[in-house]
């Protein structure tokens, strides 16, 4: 049984051997190559990885050393991880799209002597920074294309390394015993992998995870979601991301399920359909793209199909989630839903490749309630989880049947969560990291004396459900003058879930009440304007249109009433807002290159507007410098109207009127 894993094996190589014994003839890995799905069974993978490990050892890889893994989701890269672990070496996966600078930072920081890379592109990248990597001795490549004329002093084909290992194993029977001894010598407490954080919040840090803890965490969630050797997952998320290592590698080895690698990044959607995974993970962004694409295609369908589609989506909205949650639904609803499933939902899921999905997760950022509800209503068991690299992914996850779009669920099995004074979420979990690589000071900084890890995220347990709600980064959470916790991003996200709001910036820290500046979404609002005969000459004019203001006021009021229902956040109702006369732009420094608002910079730049938001003025003048695409600069002056919103009375028995 898969759940015995923790008892019998405390490192991944030991699990591999166990799987080869238990599920020898079952598929372990699939990869589409030259248009055909190739399959390797657990037995074959074991032999392959043994040969690979032997080959690596003959090239000098030793216990405790690090080896970089650079590339996309390909079987040989996963096997590089396994082979390294078999020798007690520590794999260090690096994001395939990292630029040369980031790559050289990680490779140098992790002291790698060897690197297993996907192809010419990655080799070129590493070679361009070779002078910063004096310790790097050899690179192993999977894809031979374009490398024939390269100087092979520092290069080897993975196939050659594996072939060499296989030959050596065949020639010397004692070598196999030696390898068995190496596997047995691996301790569960040894570092199993180092995952570098992406570095969005400062310099990239190497998170060291141990085999024993990783396996314990994966065993818990495998049980939680009842994953077995019959499940299938498509590995299409970055290899270096904790999610891929957890969901596909660790859970795959613990449960013994099959991991399928797509042909390439662009074909993932098609491969999904061909593989029909039973376990699926997608970040909210991907789900949104899927939905948009589907809706656009539906617009081109025949009127009959379109009508059917929209009618049954309505049925799904009404009954779908309740059916999925196994709640009471009237017979009419069940019948209609059944018909809808035959006519619309099942074919739809089939096209998306989600027909066989039993468990699907989303995480990474807040997901819009409508988007979340859509997938659940058509019968996809989509759930949210919350976690981070330091926890080896899972901190909380939503259990089947208790799903709320704005919470991330209760603590996972064996995970202990505590909320600190300042609202920060702390946790202690089976999979938690050993420490940051070569950075004891940083490790101490994020660990409490009693062994909890600080997530840096602020959150609280929802009163009604007892589930955790994550609201913002802890350092961004402020306080209103009356002491109410003010999480700007939470408010902004709630606003941004409306398709016609592109960006929102909330203010309230050390103020009496909350105000926001909005950016309309030009695509959505202009198409609305077209349908409603609203004429406008420019973005600025559209943004200032009274009807647009009225529409935004409705959205703000909706957000207010949502917040009024929540005791913790009721004080954060938005009292005043304005619509900015220009789009926030990375060229003007208002957004980061990853399209995140630089709140402080925006506050300085639009100080007159913020002052007006709090002074009670009805409008304010602003003049800003803008940078055009060709680099020229100009000035944009505008008079911006400020709208007041009537706060919603706080519901329930709180007895506090706003």
């Amino acid at each position, binding site marked *: 049984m898969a759940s015995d894993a923790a008892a019998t094996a405390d490192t991944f190589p030991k699990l591999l051997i166990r799987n080869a014994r238990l599920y020898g003839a079952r598929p372990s890995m699939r990869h*589409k190559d*030259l*248009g*055909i799905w190739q399959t390797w069974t657990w037995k074959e993978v074991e032999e392959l990885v043994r040969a690979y490990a032997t080959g690596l050892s003959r090239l000098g890889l030793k216990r405790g050393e690090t080896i970089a893994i650079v590339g996309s989701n390909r079987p040989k890269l996963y096997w590089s991880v396994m082979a390294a672990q078999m020798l007690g070496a520590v794999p260090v996966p690096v994001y395939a799209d990292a630029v040369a600078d980031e790559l050289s930072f990680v490779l140098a920081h992790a002291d790698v002597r060897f690197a297993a890379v996907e192809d010419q592109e990655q080799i070129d990248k590493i070679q361009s920074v070779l002078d910063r990597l004096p310790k790097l001795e050899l690179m192993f490549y999977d894809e031979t*294309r*374009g490398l*024939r*004329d390269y100087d092979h002093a520092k290069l080897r084909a993975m196939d050659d390394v594996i072939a060499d290992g296989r030959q050596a194993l065949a020639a010397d029977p004692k070598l196999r015993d030696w390898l068995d001894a190496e596997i047995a010598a691996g301790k569960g407490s040894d570092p199993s992998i180092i995952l570098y954080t992406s570095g969005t919040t400062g310099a990239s840090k190497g998170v060291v995870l141990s085999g024993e803890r990783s396996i314990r965490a994966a065993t818990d969630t495998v049980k939680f979601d009842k994953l077995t050797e019959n499940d299938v997952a498509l590995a299409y998320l970055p290899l270096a991301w904790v999610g891929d290592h957890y969901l596909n590698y660790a859970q795959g080895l613990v449960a013994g399920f099959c991991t399928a690698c797509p*042909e*390439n990044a*662009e*074909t993932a959607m*098609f491969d999904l359909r061909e593989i029909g995974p039973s376990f699926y993970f997608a970040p909210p962004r991907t789900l949104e793209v899927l939905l948009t694409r589907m809706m656009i295609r539906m617009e081109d369908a025949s009127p009959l199909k379109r009508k059917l589609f929209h009618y049954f989506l309505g049925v799904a909205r009404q009954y779908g989630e309740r059916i999925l949650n196994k709640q009471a639904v009237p017979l009419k609803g069940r019948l209609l839903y059944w018909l809808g499933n035959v006519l619309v939902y099942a074919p739809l899921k089939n096209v998306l490749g989600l027909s066989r999905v039993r468990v699907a997760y989303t995480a990474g950022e807040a997901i819009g309630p409508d988007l979340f509800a859509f997938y659940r209503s058509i019968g996809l068991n989509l759930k949210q989880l919350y976690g981070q690299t330091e926890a080896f992914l899972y901190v909380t996850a939503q259990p089947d049947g208790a799903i709320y779009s704005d919470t991330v669920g209760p603590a996972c099995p064996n995970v202990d969560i505590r909320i600190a004074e300042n609202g920060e979420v702390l946790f202690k979990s089976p999979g938690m990291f050993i420490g940051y690589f070569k950075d004891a000071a940083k490790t101490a900084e994020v660990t409490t004396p009693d062994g909890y890890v600080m997530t840096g995220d602020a959150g609280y347990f929802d009163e009604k459900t007892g589930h955790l709600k994550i609201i913002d980064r802890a350092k961004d959470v402020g306080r209103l003058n009356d002491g109410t916790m003010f999480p700007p991003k939470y408010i902004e996200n709630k606003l941004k879930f409306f398709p016609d709001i592109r960006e929102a910036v909330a203010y309230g820290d050390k103020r009496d009440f909350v105000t926001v500046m909005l950016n309309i979404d030009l695509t959505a609002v202009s198409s609305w304007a077209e349908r409603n005969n609203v004429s406008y000459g420019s973005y600025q004019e559209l943004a200032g249109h009274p009807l647009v203001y009225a529409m935004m006021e409705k959205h703000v009021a909706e957000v207010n009433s949502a917040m009024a229902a929540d005791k913790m956040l009721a004080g954060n109702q938005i009292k005043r807002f304005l619509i900015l006369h220009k789009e926030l732009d990375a060229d003007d420094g208002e957004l980061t290159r990853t399209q995140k608002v630089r709140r402080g910079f925006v506050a300085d730049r639009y100080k007159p507007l913020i002052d007006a938001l709090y002074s009670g003025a009805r409008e304010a003048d602003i003049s800003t410098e803008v940078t055009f695409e060709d680099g020229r600069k100009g000035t944009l002056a505008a008079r911006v109207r400020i709208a007041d919103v009537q706060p919603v009375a706080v519901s329930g028995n709180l007895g506090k009127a706003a």
Partner: protein
Amino acid sequence: MRAPDGPPVTSGDVLLSIDNVSLSFGGVKAISGVSFDIRKGEIRAIIGPNGAGKTSMLNIINGFYHPQQGIITFKGEARSKMRPHDAADGGIARTFQNVALFRGMSALDNIMAGRTLKMKRNMFWQMLRIGPALAEEVEHRHRVEEIIDFLKIQEIRRTPVSRLPYGLQKRVELGRALAMEPELLLLDEPMAGMNIEEKEDMSRFILDVNEHYGTTIALIEHDMGVVMDLSDRVVVLDHGIKIADGTPQEVKSNQAVIDAYLGVAH
């Protein structure tokens, strides 16, 4: 690679030579007395202003036009005119200035069409699709999949080409030409109408084809930057006459070329 009839040609040898070729349509002289050669393994560019006779030149090479005068020597065999099937059998493949694909067919089927000449079983067998015909198709499909992998177009394998953006259609067309496993590949403005990124991609594919398959390439191109970066040697035509021939450097500094492109002050 299949070595078609004729003695083997080694790298650096002349693969094809055009000797004093002239072509006219009625009274219009498209090409007059042009001679040049294409060596095995090189990337040879044919450039010139509009109406210089570049496409006519390609059409002569692959036997679509028959010159009134001159000798074409391909792999040591001299002819006064090429015929299209001679060209195809002899290992010459081409792409067109305006994409010429089977629009309703998928990218895969279009590239598969490039294998037609290599199929040995007759139509009857292919329709039955059993035994040897099936084995043959599997073999050809394998080759086609290698090309799809090479050109990185896996995600559009099943897409009808009419739905593809222009840059990808061009790539499919290149794929179809490659499926013929040509010795000489003629590319008529492979980068016309592309944006910079598409141009860079296409340039890389052209270089890869040349390196990986060892294919000799003759290309017509308007983008001077691309020509200078890609090609080993350049021949310049103007009003049907050869005005220069040499390395990109030599051609760039040639006064006649500068005059032809920029005009001469009279």
